[in-house]
Every structure is written in structure tokens, then in C-alpha cells.
């Protein structure tokens, strides 16, 4: 009948009540749906493998073949003190780097969003360059600098590097927020008797704080997972990714899988909670 020949425009997400018993047809939409899930499955495969092998009752150091299920690696999570300290190093660097780049990036982002000033063009260019430059080159050039300057490598140089590539990301996020900030809100504060300082801390800062926070989170994520730039600037310091990299050649202990799983779980949980909170807020609008 008529309904079955109908080509549905894509906009309406709902089905017609007219199609009382919709025949299962192979539609473009259905194919796309299946395809999308296939891609998602593919994306998840290595994660699933990582998680699974954290439960592998492997006898030796080579966690490669399935030897039965165990929880023991969770109990022996901190058995490799150097692995543990690599993780701690990563966390410390990520915290310091994200806070630092948060502060520096906020300054740039705020200035770019708020003022027109000479040099903002070049600044934008440098930011664009840091965002689009290959990490390899940034790492290599930093190494060149440190080597030329005769500076040793270690946590400090790693942090410097991480701050460097995170600043622009923070700045872009903050700038976007500041640009959409209604200037008259700050004028309103002045109008209500607030001086410049009070206006910034009581009005502007709280309003752009969520953007700063997402910038800092982004920087944290970039830092803790960074491998390439870190490889060039680490010297003998081991971060979590570097430790894993080193261990690949000689077998990765199941503890790495466990740590990976835990980081994954915390990240996912955090994202889900943040999402639920923001969607609750959205609903109140």
C-alpha cells in the first residue's frame, strides 16, 4: 500500500503509526546502523583484549596466550615497583602540566577572546602551528634545544614539553568561551558597583571556569597518554606509556593490563557521570 512506497525524509526520527506492522526491510538507515555498530565493535576489540588479559592466569612473564581466569593480578597490582613509579610519574607530570598549561593557556585564551591587540595574529599562528605540528617534530626539536643547551632530560623537560603542546588547546577552549561571553555581563557588574578586580573574580572567572576546567582536563588527558614527545624529552625517566613501550620487547606483565583497565574504567566512569550531570542540567533549561 501507499506507506510502503514512501521515501521517508530523514528529519523525522519517529515512525509513523500508520505503519502498523512495519515490514523489516533493508533500508539505508538500517545498513548504516549495522555498519556503525561494526565499527564500534572494531574499536572495542583491542580494549576488550586488554581487559581480558588482565585476568589471564599466565605463568610467566609473557602474557600472550590464554591460560585461565584469575583475579590475582589485581591483588599484585603494585608488584613491579618501577611500573608503579612510572605510573606515579605520569600522574604527577600530568597534574603539574595540566595546571600550568591551564594557567598559561587561560591567559592567552582570555586575552585573545577579549581584546584586540597587536601580535594576536602571530599568536594565533603559533597556536595553530603547535596544534597541527607533528608531535615527532615537536619532540625532536625540543630534544635539539635541550641538547644544544646542554640541559639534561627528565621529569622537568617532559613537563615543559607537555605544557608547551597543551597551552594552545586550553587557549582555544577558553577563547571560544570568552568570545561568546556577553560583554554586557561585565558591564552589568560594573554598573552594580563592582570594580575591575571584583568583576573578574566574581563574574568573569566563574563563568569561564567550566571552559578552563575542560581545558585542564584535556591537557591532563593529552599529558598522561603522551608517548611521542615524551620519548624525546624523557631521558631515563619512565612514564607509564614509556614503561610499557620498554616492556613490549620483553613481555608486558598482566599488571599493565590491570592498570590500563583501571584507568579506562575511571575515565569512562568520570565521563559518564559528567555527562549525566550535564544532561540533567540541560533538562532543567
Amino acid at each position, binding site marked *: 500500500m*501507499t*506507506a510502503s*512506497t*514512501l*521515501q521517508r*525524509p530523514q*528529519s*523525522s526520527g*519517529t*515512525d*509513523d*503509526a*500508520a505503519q502498523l506492522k512495519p515490514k523489516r526491510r533493508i533500508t539505508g538507515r538500517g545498513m548504516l546502523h549495522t555498519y556503525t555498530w561494526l565499527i564500534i565493535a572494531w574499536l572495542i576489540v583491542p580494549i576488550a583484549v586488554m581487559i581480558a588479559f588482565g585476568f589471564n592466569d599466565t605463568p610467566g612473564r609473557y602474557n600472550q596466550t590464554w591460560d585461565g581466569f584469575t583475579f590475582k593480578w589485581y591483588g599484585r597490582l603494585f608488584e613491579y615497583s618501577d611500573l608503579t613509579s612510572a605510573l606515579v610519574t605520569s600522574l604527577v607530570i600530568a597534574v603539574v602540566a595540566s595546571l600550568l598549561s591551564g594557567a598559561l593557556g587561560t591567559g592567552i585564551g582570555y586575552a585573545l577572546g577579549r581584546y584586540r591587540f597587536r601580535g594576536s595574529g602571530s599568536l594565533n599562528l603559533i597556536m595553530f602551528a603547535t596544534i597541527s605540528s607533528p608531535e615527532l617534530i615537536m619532540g625532536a626539536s625540543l630534544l635539539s634545544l635541550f641538547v644544544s643547551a646542554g640541559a639534561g632530560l627528565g621529569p622537568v623537560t617532559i613537563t615543559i614539553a607537555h605544557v608547551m603542546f597543551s597551552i594552545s588547546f586550553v587557549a582555544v577552549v577558553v577563547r571560544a568561551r570568552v568570545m561568546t561571553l556577553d560583554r554586557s555581563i561585565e558591564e552589568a557588574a560594573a554598573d552594580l558597583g563592582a570594580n575591575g578586580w571584583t568583576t573578574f573574580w566574581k563574574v568573569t572567572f566563574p563563568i569561564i571556569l567550566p571552559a578552563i576546567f575542560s581545558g585542564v582536563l584535556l591537557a591532563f588527558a593529552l599529558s598522561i597518554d603522551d608517548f611521542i614527545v615524551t620519548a624525546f624529552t624523557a631521558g631515563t625517566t619512565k612514564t607509564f606509556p614509556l614503561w610499557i613501550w620498554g616492556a613490549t620487547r620483553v613481555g608486558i606483565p598482566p599488571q599493565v593490563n590491570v592498570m590500563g583497565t583501571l584507568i579506562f574504567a575511571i575515565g569512562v566512569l568520570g565521563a559518564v557521570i559528567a555527562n549525566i550531570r550535564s544532561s540533567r542540567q540541560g533538562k532543567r533549561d
Partner: protein
Amino acid sequence: MTTPQHSAVRARSAAPAAGAPAIEFVGVNKNYLSHGETVPAVKRTDLAIGQGEFFSLLGPSGCGKTTTMRMIAGFEEPTAGKVFLDGQDVTGVSANKRDVNMVFQSYALFPHLNTYQNVAFGLERKKVAKSEIGRRVGEILEIVSLTGMEKRSPKEMSGGQQQRVALARALVNRPRALLLDEPLGALDLKLRQQMQIELKRIQREVGITFVYVTHDQGEALTMSDRIAVMNAGVIEQLGTPREIYERPASRFVAGFIGTSNIVDGHVDRVEGGLALLSYTAQDRVVVPAAQSVRQGDKLEVSIRPEKIDLHRGVPPVQATGGSVLSGTVTEVVYHGTSTNYTVATAAGADFTVFDQNASNADDLADRGDRVYLTWAPQHSYMIGD
């Protein structure tokens, strides 16, 4: 064209044009499914829109105007019933195969194409020859006064100009009907008024049926040949602007279109087709009464503010044949062309009285003045529902 067999089914009000109506709904019903629940958007509707008519759908938000429009365009299929265009059943025919075009509220111009390309889009799809496209686009751009803007992209144009591109893009295809869904909603007052005039001019020029959705009653009144007032998925009244304004079929219509003064009371007497409602010795309302009205019935009477005369003293003899209500002026608002008085009447209701600041009009009253309102019985009417 043969007379379609469904012609027996007619909309409430006959279409003015001869032959098959440009657009016809027969028993159309539309439900949406939302979160598993059925949302009735348009309830059983019959409707015929004549050839060349400027037809408006008027009603509050969510009443089903857009849904009606989208069923004509082919973006939604009716849950039940049929849609005819020029007498042909188009139910189930997809949008790109229907010979009607739509002007969207947000314009929906193709942002990556310039004016010329936007306007030529439909003709290209129809495989019209290049030279012919050029000719027709040029022609229509002239009609909408956009000659010379061919190369501009949408974001390089003002709201009003974009609006006209959207119009040209639809009109250039010479559709059987043009559907306009709140086309002026996004424009500011001045531009809106200007575009109203422009639209009316263009419609006259091209002679195409316009189906116009708006929730602005002023716009509907000034522009339309006929108006359908919708409420909760149902057409409550269909008629010319004057029919609808002066004889609203329901309380809803009366309230939605223009300002109405509404007063209620119990019938004291029915005489010569007129019902009399008394409030005090002097205060009374006389209204043409339906056959069914009996003494003691409770009635609601509606009077438009421009029909009322306001007197500072006791009203002249000639007025006393009709209604008289005394009261006190609580607000006087000067509007330039007119002055509006708000009067707290003896009948309990607050009345608005509209008075043109005409050549012979003095200031009728000041705030606090004691005044009398009078009007002829034929300018008031009982309201249903």
C-alpha cells in the same frame, strides 16, 4: 483534467476558485509517535484551498500548522486520509515528486551555493536547459528585487534579502502552490511589515496559490484571502478575515484574533430576537439571541473595542436602543492614531475601548472619569463553547 471522484467530499467552506481545488485534504489525520506515545498533531481534517488563493493557517504554537504544511509538501504522510493536489491523489508521493514548493521559516538556503545557484537548484533537478534556467532565474530575481545579487552567498545577505532568495528559489519552479511556514518569523518588525507588502505584491504578480502559516493574527488578517484558525489539531474556523474577525465561531477564535471585551450575565428577557441582560437600572447589554436562548440563561457576550462608543455624560437618546454600561476609566493609553481606554464597568468586566484620534475626536475622557459605554446590538454576539 477530469473531475476526481472524491469531489463530493468538500471542505467546510467552498473554495472560491472553479475546477479542482489547488490543495485538498480529505479526512486527513496525523499522529506522531513520540517516546512510544501517540501524539495527535492534526485531527480529522477536510480542507480545500482554491487556485490562486492566499490562504493562511493561523493558530497558537503546537496547534498543527507546520504538520499540515508538511503533509502538503510531502515531508509527512497522513496517518489516515488523503491529500490531493490539483485533483490528483499525491498521498504517498515523495516530496521531490510533488509540484509544490516550500519557503522555510529559517529560509533553509543552501549555505554553500550563491543566490543564483540556490535559485537554479530546482530547475537543474528538473533538467531544464541551461539557457532557460538563466532566463527564468533572472526573471524571478527581478520580481523579488534581487537583480545583481546573483553571486552573493546567503551569509553575505541581510535577513530580508535571504527571505527573498528563499521565495525566488521556490517560485522559479512555478509550483502549483507555494507553502510558506512563518516566512517572516525571524525578521524584525519593520522588515516584516515591508516583506508583508512585498509578498502580497509578488503573489498578485505570479498568481500562484499561497499557503501561509503564521501565528501573528495581524499578519493573517491583512494578507489573506481566507484564513483557517487552528486549535489543537482542529480547524476551528475557516473564512475571510472579516468573517473571522467579526463573527468568531468560538470563544477561542474570538480571543485569539484581536481584542474582545467579554461580559456575562443572565438573560432577563428575550424579545424580537434580542436578549436583554440587565445589571443595574441603567446598565444593560442587548445582544442578538439564538433561538434556543431562554430567560434566565447565562450568556457570554463579546464586543470588539472599536465598536464601542464612550460618552462622558449620560449617553444620547439614539444610543439607548442598544447596550449601555457605566464605568470608570482606569487607564488611558495614547497610541497616536488612536487612544485606548480601559474602563471598569458596572457589569464587572474591564472593557477596552478603541477610539480613533480622528479629525473630530477630542479627548474623550481622563483616568478616573465616570463614563458610559454604548454599542448597537448587532455589534455584539453571543459566544459558544
